[in-house]
């Protein structure tokens, strides 16, 4: 930094304003990245917005922009630094997203979905945002792979977003922008969803009550489900085996009943350890030159579009089904079909309670929300397969 300051003064003294401007701008960009990192940390601590990810990402963004740091690559020797090593061996090879999926799978309870299996279709409908956002990205000039990865922000599923972006070998700074967008908007679900739901539904629709049958689900069913789903998904799209397989493996550990310690480890230690390292590793890719671009701003904007279309997709699908159903579905439940579990289900139940304090649609919302976790992984796999073919991968 001392050399830079000297170079700046020498440039001024020599009247070489181009060099002086370059140095000055690079320091301004550094300060801006410090600010962005600080904002992410503030959102994590003060607002409780996905703190497990946003705080490490924010801190990573700060340390990577300290001039001449060698945490990613040594600027003098070109040697890989610790976070460069971590990125190459845990993100680029998809290790961390897959490990997080095992952890998530161990946390999922499919019982509400077994008790209300028709909610599965809202997990499909709420993935509309992925494809709608992909089209918007294409219209804005992003190429197929970039648009596909940006669209997957609409999966409302951080690991899937990272997995797909890496699969398409996108620039690390773009992967960082996609990751920050995915996790930021996931934490903003309580703010994004209600206005969209209210705009697309009438008060009468929001007051619809639904029955829920709390049947007992056999352990055999809960053990066979992850196995059969993995096989089925693998035959539909072989690219889905890593994601769906990891998710269902985690779920199998949970449901088998004989691996309590492993299930506990997956849900807690594994989830926390990977999340901690994933966040800071992604954050260290947010260098000023790579991150402060028009593309980043577009990606952040399209993340919002993705979540709006996801919500709209689920709600409109419910309204469409109601045209044919005698026992109507409360359309708000459709909005819970996104993968932001369990936040979206809670938001929808809260909205239902605001309309009618005695209306309880939490179990249906949870079923739809759980379905969203399946739907997002399948949708991400569809993007891998279809864009992969179209882009000649």
């Amino acid at each position: 930094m001392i050399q830079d300051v000297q170079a700046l003064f020498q440039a001024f003294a020599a009247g070489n304003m181009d060099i002086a401007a370059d140095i000055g701008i690079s320091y301004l960009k550094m300060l801006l990245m410090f600010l962005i990192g600080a904002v992410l940390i503030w959102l994590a601590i003060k607002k409780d917005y996905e703190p497990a990810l946003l705080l490490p990402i924010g801190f990573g963004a700060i340390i990577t922009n300290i001039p001449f740091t060698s945490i990613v690559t040594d600027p003098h020797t070109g040697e890989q630094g610790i976070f460069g090593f971590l990125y190459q061996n845990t993100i680029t090879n998809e290790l961390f997203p897959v490990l997080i999926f095992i952890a998530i799978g161990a946390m999922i309870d499919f019982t509400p979905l077994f008790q209300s299996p028709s909610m599965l279709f809202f997990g499909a409908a709420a993935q509309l945002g992925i494809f709608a956002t992909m089209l918007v990205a294409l219209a804005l000039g992003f190429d197929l792979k970039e648009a596909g990865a940006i669209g997957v922000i609409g999966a409302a599923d951080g690991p899937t977003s990272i997995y797909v972006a890496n699969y398409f070998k996108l620039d690390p700074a773009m992967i960082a922008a996609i990751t920050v967008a995915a996790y930021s908007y996931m934490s903003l679900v309580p703010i994004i969803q209600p206005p969209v739901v209210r705009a697309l539904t009438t008060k009468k629709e929001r007051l619809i009550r639904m029955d829920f049958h709390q049947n007992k689900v056999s352990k055999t069913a809960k053990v066979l489900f992850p196995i059969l789903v993995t096989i089925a998904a693998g035959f539909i799209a072989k690219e889905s085996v890593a994601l769906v397989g990891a998710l269902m493996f985690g779920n199998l550990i949970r449901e088998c009943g004989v691996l309590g310690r492993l299930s506990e480890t997956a849900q807690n230690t594994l989830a926390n350890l990977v999340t901690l390292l994933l966040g800071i590793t992604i954050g260290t890719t947010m260098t000023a030159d790579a991150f402060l671009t028009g593309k980043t701003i577009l990606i952040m904007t399209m993340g919002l579009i993705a979540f709006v279309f996801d919500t709209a997709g689920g709600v409109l699908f419910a309204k469409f089904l109601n045209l044919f159903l005698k026992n109507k579905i409360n359309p708000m439940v459709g909005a819970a079909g996104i993968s932001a579990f369990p936040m979206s289900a809670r938001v929808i139940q809260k909205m239902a309670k605001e309309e009618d304090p005695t209306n309880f649609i939490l179990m249906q919302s949870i079923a739809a929300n759980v379905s969203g976790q399946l739907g997002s992984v399948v949708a991400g796999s569809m993007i891998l397969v279809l864009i992969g073919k179209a882009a000649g991968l």
Partner: protein
Amino acid sequence: MNNTIAQNLVIGLEVSAWGLVGVFGALLLFFFIMIGLDKIKEKDDTDKQA
């Protein structure tokens, strides 16, 4: 592969159509798996009913 925006949009529409078909199709399959598995009751449940 350098396509124009229009070409990419056409591909994107095809991807979206097939993608949604794929997602709904997969979840429909999971639906049938779930319905089928839900018929499996534990032995102690059937004994109690008997």
